[in-house]
């Protein structure tokens, strides 16, 4: 009985009282992998010259909405892409701002200028209802828009994550990329699960 009590105390102390040292990211594995995908997307997309004039300026990945990545981007502090540093900028979502009264529905985002400066903007699932508004707010600013929401490509987005057999895949709307003056390299297109290109559809129609 004494030994049992002793073991209980030890286990309790170890589990609930002792100091903690945690090694792994708190983000889910899914979003750790997606974070790495976003980093890779930057390598395979070309922005117009006016967007990347300063060779020393970092490439910015914007996250708008309720952030599921948590600390998944921490390793990026020591990494670069296209010889540039990569920085993460987080923005409150349209839904959050409107709920808290900081913004009305027809008003622009208070940080819209900073959002427009992003090279890649990930639209979080919490913003799924406001995707058209967010895409409209970055129109004409060559922002690579990415999400993991059904129907994203049809709503004007450029790259959408999908899940297949518990693995991350993605689909690309080349037409929307073209409208944003973005050039997506063929290496990335080849790996996409689905590629939407209205130019191909028109070509087929005219045949």
């Amino acid at each position, binding site marked *: 009985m004494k030994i*049992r009590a002793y*073991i209980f105390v030890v286990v309790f102390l170890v589990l609930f009282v002792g*100091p903690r*040292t*945690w090694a*792994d990211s708190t983000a*889910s*594995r899914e979003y750790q992998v997606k974070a790495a995908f976003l980093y*890779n997307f930057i390598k395979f997309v070309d922005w117009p010259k006016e967007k990347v004039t300063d060779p020393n300026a970092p490439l910015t990945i914007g996250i708008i909405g309720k952030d599921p990545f948590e600390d998944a981007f921490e390793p990026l502090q020591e990494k670069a892409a296209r010889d540039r540093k990569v920085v993460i900028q987080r923005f409150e979502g349209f839904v959050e701002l409107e709920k808290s009264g900081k913004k009305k529905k027809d008003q622009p985002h208070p940080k819209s200028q900073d959002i427009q400066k992003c090279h890649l903007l990930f639209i979080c699932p919490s913003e799924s209802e406001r995707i058209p508004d967010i895409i409209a707010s970055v129109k004409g600013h060559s922002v690579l828009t990415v999400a993991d929401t059904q129907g994203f490509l049809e709503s004007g987005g450029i790259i959408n994550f999908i899940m297949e057999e518990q693995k991350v895949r993605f689909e690309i709307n080349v037409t929307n990329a073209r409208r944003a003056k973005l050039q997506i390299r063929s290496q990335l297109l080849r790996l996409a699960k689905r590629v939407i290109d209205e130019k191909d559809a028109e070509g087929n129609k005219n045949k």
Partner: protein
Amino acid sequence: MSARNGLLRESVFAVMLLLVFGFSESRVVGAQQQDPNKHKDFFEMSIEELMDVPVVVSASRQAQKISELSVPVSVITAEDIHYSGLTSIPEILQFAPGMDVLQIDRNRYAVGVRGLHEVYSDRMLGLIDGRAADSINTGGPRFPQWPILLEDIERIEIVRGPGGAAWGANAFNGVVNIITKEPEDCLGWLTSTQFNQFGDSYSYIRWAEKMGKWSWRQSVGYQSQVSSDEAIDNDDFYSHDFSRNLRFDNKVVYRATEDTKVSFGLGYSYLESGDFEFGGRLLYKNNRINTMRFFTRVDHDFARETSGYLQFFSNLSTAKEPALLEYSENENDIEGQLNFVPAEGHLASVGGNFRLVHIDGERSSDPQTFVFHGSPVTENWAGLFAMDRWDITDRLTLEGQIRGDNYSETQLDWSARIAGLYALDDEKNHVLRLGGARAFRAPAITIRQGSAQRIPHPFVPGAYLLNLVPAPEDLHNEGMYSLEAGYTGRITKMLTIRADGYYQRFEHLIGFATLPDPLSIGRIFFTTANIDGADAWGSEVELAVEDRRGKLSVWYAYNDFQTDQEEQPLRAYLPATHKVGLTGRLYLNEGWTLNLNYRYTDVTSGEHANPLNPTNPGPSNTLDLTVAKRLFKGNGELLMGVANLLAEDNDAVSAVGSLTDHETPGRMFFARMQLKF
């Protein structure tokens, strides 16, 4: 327990304590040192490599996924199984909310969802990858015979209550569905060997590979358990419950196109075990059971949100159980399902199956062998089902399922479910569920046509004291109606709560009814019959905290059951009224993992299970602890643990039909070494 064994136990205790304190110290020292390379790995992968990384659905998605189900489901993950260190499915199931598990002997467990558990429990549906896995002749799962290696299990889904059309016919009081890993999710070699202080061993090797469009997984395992008598001192009864089990499991997947997947598999197990007392008869001979499972399946995505599958499977089992019966049974099933969107906001499925079953209860020269009247028999089963899930609004979803089955040996019957899910918030972090269901359970051949005679009459040659005779031809399916309500809430990013309540009304429950002795010479005659109904009600509440650092989940189950008649025979135990469970896991620095499983079970009433030898086991506390350390840069792992720490041995529990019972080993220290390459 001998002095030598006691010294061994104490030594292992000491080692474990040292490990606990040892890595406590290393944790404190390492507190200031974060491993900067821990999650750099993904950023150094190419896109092609990232596309090969299997991901468990994120916590939020999983919470939403479970909250979107119209039935209460618990999931035991591969990690739960891995870190438990346990080597049998029933031992693993006992830590899930609402499960009732009693150990009868080292090979037999009474397992049930919300009670109604017994060794040959037919009130719970057992599936492997959605395919029927129950014993054909008794109608319940025989876990030791399943050709499943534990490290090949991706997850175990436990449905509490009637499963409805989604899980097939006979999803009566609950469903246990074992989902196995896809070959692509476990590529490479894995070897594992485990032993405990009694001399039990569990060794296993797996090879999974991918080549172009093909991938495959091959697993072989051997498990050996000594009898209870060898493990613990027992002066009252000589137990013969050893086992030796060879298992082989194989799965092959061919991705013909992006939209078409073909898979097939073959599993085989050979179980040799000691026999057990049944109806006063124990021969101390060995049982030999061969089980083979084969399947082939084609999955195809036709268009956006339209998919389907066609599947054939065949299960074959032959058994020589000298004290009980000898039989061969075979079922062949073909089934298909089509998923499609009939209109905006709807997701529908239709499907059906046809099954042919052949059972031969071979007669032997021993007049006390259990037989199936009319054997050999060929039976058939056909079912059709339809389901629809309608998203009426962003927050309100309605789901309906209906299924009809015709079993050649009983009657046409139906099962159905209707449920509404309402999200209290736009993000669906809080979801209410309200539903109703109807289910049935068709009695298997043992219940309908089984007969046996045991214990020779002391005064009348050729007569026997215990006589089981076949059931009347009008034996009806058991039926059940259920009302359910539930709530799933994601309180914070890490904290979720789930609460489910239910009321169930059972009809035509089958039990053993006594018959008059035609010759009035003191014999007991009994048969199976629809005795009466019952009411059940209760709730399960679970609180879970989980993130990448670990998990802690606590649950409480209240399961009450009241038969219409006071001493109504049920062929099963009632649920333990109060059950509590706790699982805790910590992932620490430098590859250490701590795991704890705890369970409290209230007294379990056996009065309705075995009137000849009723036992009321419990209350009991079960505590399992393991410590694991990753080795060789993550390619190896050493795990040490203790199962059932709080009990030196387990109380004797009688099985239905048995006149005797015996204690089984409790506290078990074990060690396991795994290597991957």
